[in-house]
């Protein structure tokens, strides 16, 4: 591969991923110039390390891993996001079912009744704020898998954790999201939620 070919490949792959890179950056550091700086720095670092990418089919998880490492090493401390209480990672186990699985019947009453309109009427801002309220590890995992369509293996590669950890974070992240939406339902006065 010539230098021009390398650069062309790199440029095309970055262009394909830039919306997703920016989307993840925003969820990591908040909106504004910090997120743009994080993406630009990721691209610069990726080019410097491009020769280390053995399997070019793995470009996407590879550059997201660089973004994540860049965030951890340089951006997390000065992020505009509020400092959060460290979340203790729990082992993957049967008791890590989602809120939905733990309290299925009441939730499903809520889901199957006219209160379902609450869910359908959720504003994008409400969903974004529920996602943003997740602890870092769960927020990033949920975004990589649910929003950007990474497989568990790819997300594990990005985050530098075992695939089993991605699986357990997805369960826990979903539980926390559902609880947040449940609380919103209660605040909005929906009867099935109020009975909890």
């Amino acid at each position: 591969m010539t230098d021009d070919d390398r650069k062309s490949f790199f440029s095309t792959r970055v262009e394909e991923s830039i919306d997703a890179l920016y989307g993840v950056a925003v969820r990591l550091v908040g909106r504004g110039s910090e997120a743009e700086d994080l993406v630009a720095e990721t691209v610069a670092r990726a080019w410097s390390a491009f020769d280390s990418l053995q399997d070019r089919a793995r470009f996407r998880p590879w550059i997201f891993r660089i973004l994540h490492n860049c965030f951890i090493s340089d951006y997390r401390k000065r992020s505009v996001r509020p400092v959060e209480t460290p979340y203790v990672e729990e082992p993957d186990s049967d008791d890590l079912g989602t809120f939905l699985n733990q309290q299925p019947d009441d939730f499903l009453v809520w889901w199957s009744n006219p209160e379902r309109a609450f869910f359908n009427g959720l504003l994008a801002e409400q969903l974004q704020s529920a996602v943003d309220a997740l602890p870092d590890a769960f927020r990033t995992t949920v975004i990589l898998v649910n929003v950007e369509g990474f497989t568990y293996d790819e997300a594990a590669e990005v985050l530098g954790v075992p695939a089993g950890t991605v699986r357990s974070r997805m369960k826990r992240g979903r539980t926390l999201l559902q609880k947040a939406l449940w609380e919103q339902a209660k605040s909005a006065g929906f009867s099935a939620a109020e009975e909890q």
Partner: protein
Amino acid sequence: MSDINDDNHPQHDIGCLQAIEAFYAYLDGELDDPESIAGFEHHLSHCRSCFSRTEMEQALTARIRTSVRRESPALLRARVRRLIDKF
């Protein structure tokens, strides 16, 4: 769970407990064994509770995806293009 392994499920049905085990792998496209997929989908075809749960999770995931996904600013795209041009 209203109907875990109830009598209405045929004998070959995986039952709610096993369905819950497979639930998120299925939703996240991580259930790649055709037999497991068929077993899960068969369970959904006659278990209202698990069907509703799946439907709700799929709807929630789709809403999150459309609400959270965003386009990068034109200024950032131009900045990155200039950066790559200098490489």
